[in-house]
């Protein structure tokens, strides 16, 4: 819809204007990339497996074809029980974090926001630390105490921030952000204390903080995916409200958006998707911050485009990062993301002019 020449927004101006008008192209391209990453993620790993075997296993499990006569049970287990759920989990969580990030950025009208800005990260980390330190084992629907407390911690933190921060209403979005920062600081202090007294459990707490998808399994995926993907769909459905908020609270109201209600609902959905993701994978940064930015450069700021395409891009990014992490000796995915994401983000920033501000 951007006719004419796009000057001043991107260095590669003509390319940007051509793509900006075609979100379908972008979506298609990323979906193709997802396909490639799925294949690569399942086919590559610390154990070398012939591509033919990979295909045979997938064909057998998906379509019931009798192709696995020559494939060892170990190979089949690796592909179907270990790698495939892990790649899919990475995609689901990546999508959830990216959409939540885009939503929070729109809600707070702040391009520096990420899904953890309202305390979800610190709440999840503290919940996980408590679970690790408690001498109790518990399992609810394929989730251990760790996942349950991380999830609960994230949601509780978000709730506290939302309540204390004035819901972003008349007090302003700044107040909400600052409250998020303050609450996160308190929670992080508690977390640090927990780490200090943790003794031999420190390593477990630390690996949660660094983020990783090693524990992915079908049962966990099937339990978490509906939650995350459902929240994503709900956010995309309400993307219109985010568009309304682009010009400010008053303008949103005048454009027909019920600010208070939408803000509460969208924050709840973003917190839900983030909490469910963090409970499984620990703290993985960057996806929620960087992906919406890049997508916005490609398709414009309209949330109705940014959210769904961010979901695809986030899925691709986390799947790729996890593949790299696995091939590099199973280092934490959060480390890969930071090492790759940060420089990439700097490059993106250099190519973007931020323009005047009031």
């Amino acid at each position: 819809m951007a006719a004419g020449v796009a000057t001043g927004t991107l260095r590669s101006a003509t390319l940007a204007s051509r793509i900006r008008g075609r979100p379908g192209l972008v979506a298609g391209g990323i979906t193709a990339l997802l396909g490639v990453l799925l294949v690569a993620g399942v086919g590559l790993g610390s154990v070398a497996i012939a591509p033919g075997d990979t295909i045979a296993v997938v064909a057998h499990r998906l379509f019931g074809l009798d192709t696995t006569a020559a494939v060892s049970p170990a190979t089949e287990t690796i592909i179907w029980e270990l790698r495939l759920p892990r790649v899919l989990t990475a995609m689901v969580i990546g999508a959830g974090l990216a959409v939540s990030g885009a939503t929070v950025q729109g809600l707070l009208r702040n391009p520096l926001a990420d899904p953890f800005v309202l305390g979800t990260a610190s709440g999840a980390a503290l919940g996980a630390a408590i679970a690790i330190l408690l001498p109790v084992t518990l399992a609810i629907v394929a989730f251990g105490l760790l996942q349950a407390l991380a999830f609960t911690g994230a949601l509780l933190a978000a709730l506290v921030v939302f309540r204390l921060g004035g819901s972003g209403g008349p007090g302003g979005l700044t107040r909400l952000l600052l409250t998020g920062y303050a609450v996160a600081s308190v929670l992080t202090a508690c977390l640090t204390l927990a780490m200090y007294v943790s003794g031999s459990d420190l390593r477990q707490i630390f690996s949660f903080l660094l983020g990783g998808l090693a524990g992915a399994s079908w049962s966990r995926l099937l339990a978490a995916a509906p939650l995350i993907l459902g929240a994503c769909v709900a956010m995309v459905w309400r993307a219109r409200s985010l568009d309304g908020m682009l010009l400010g609270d008053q303008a949103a109201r005048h454009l027909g958006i019920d600010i208070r209600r939408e803000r509460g609902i969208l924050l709840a959905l973003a917190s839900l998707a983030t909490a469910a993701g963090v409970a499984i994978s620990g703290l993985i940064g960057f996806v929620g911050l960087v992906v919406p930015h890049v997508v916005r450069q490609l398709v414009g700021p309209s949330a109705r485009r940014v959210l769904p395409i961010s979901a695809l891009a986030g899925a691709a990014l986390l799947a790729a990062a996890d593949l790299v992490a696995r091939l590099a000796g199973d280092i934490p995915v959060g480390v890969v993301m930071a090492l790759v994401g940060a420089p990439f983000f700097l490059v993106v920033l250099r190519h973007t002019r931020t323009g005047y501000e009031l």
Partner: protein
Amino acid sequence: MSPARPRRALPSVLGLTLALLLAACSTSGGTTSSPPDPTGSIAPAITGTPSAAPSIGSSPAAAFPVTLTDDEGTAVELEAKPTTIVSLTPATTEILFAIGAGDRVVATDDASDFPAEAVDLPDVATFSSVDVERIVDLGADLVVAGGLGFSPPGSIAQLRELGIPVVVVYAPSVEGVYHDIELLGTATGETTAATELAESMRTEIDAIEAATHPGDTAPKVFYEIGYTDATGQIFAPADASFVAEMVTLAGGDVITTGDPASYEIPLETLIATDPQVIVLGVNPFYEPTPEAVKARPGWDAMTAVKDDAIRTVQDTEITRPGPRLATGLRNLAAAVRPDVTLPTAP
């Protein structure tokens, strides 16, 4: 040696029960009768094997299938004698080789450095991660992991979810080591060798303990686990820890940190406690010298420094809960009580 292993009642109870059973039945000749069963919860021994390994639910005619309880209290079912074993801790690697199951071990963790055959085996675990894919690819039918977070609990759960039996062990005390040896003997079907090993270790250790406790006062011993030059942090045995027990068995009055969860001791406390002997635990990561210790500021106030009673011992054999424990205790006793004549090594 992992820090902070709180005592757990279960292994001690099992170990105690085991000790009673071992005492009650003979270990040299074969017996086909059931040993006395004080607790009533342990099934009759297997016909044809002379030991009384705890085997709940085993059929009387074969060692397998067997269901055993690991040190975390998890029931682990082994359907057949494992032929492809993966060991995820250095101590369990040593035990497996010592009881004769070494030819069936196909992979270890990267810290397993003894015996020499174990070093050549592929590594499937590091300090922080376990390569589940490779373990599956190797077709492991038994994985031995370290408890208390030594092996990542998530990986243990994942392996179990994939149907691979994982036996988790940890030994907070010397008694626990005997128990773990027997446990691994049951798991691998090397019950005879395991019992013999545990017995000989127990005999030797008991003898050393007896030799170093003739009733006179034990010297105050500071066992230095580590020291950071930059910060001056001193690492000593925690209360009721494995190392503390070893020092006590060696005839020393062990100086501990006063806290079962902390391995750090302030310098003032150490000076106030005034050790008579300082033992330096040397390993590939930490190699202090007596001269360096004497040069540390403030340390010359200690009796041990004044008397030049600073001795080095190989730390690995003392802190690793494995088959070389008796050797380690012997070396430790020689350092703590050089005045005592230790019984000859078997």
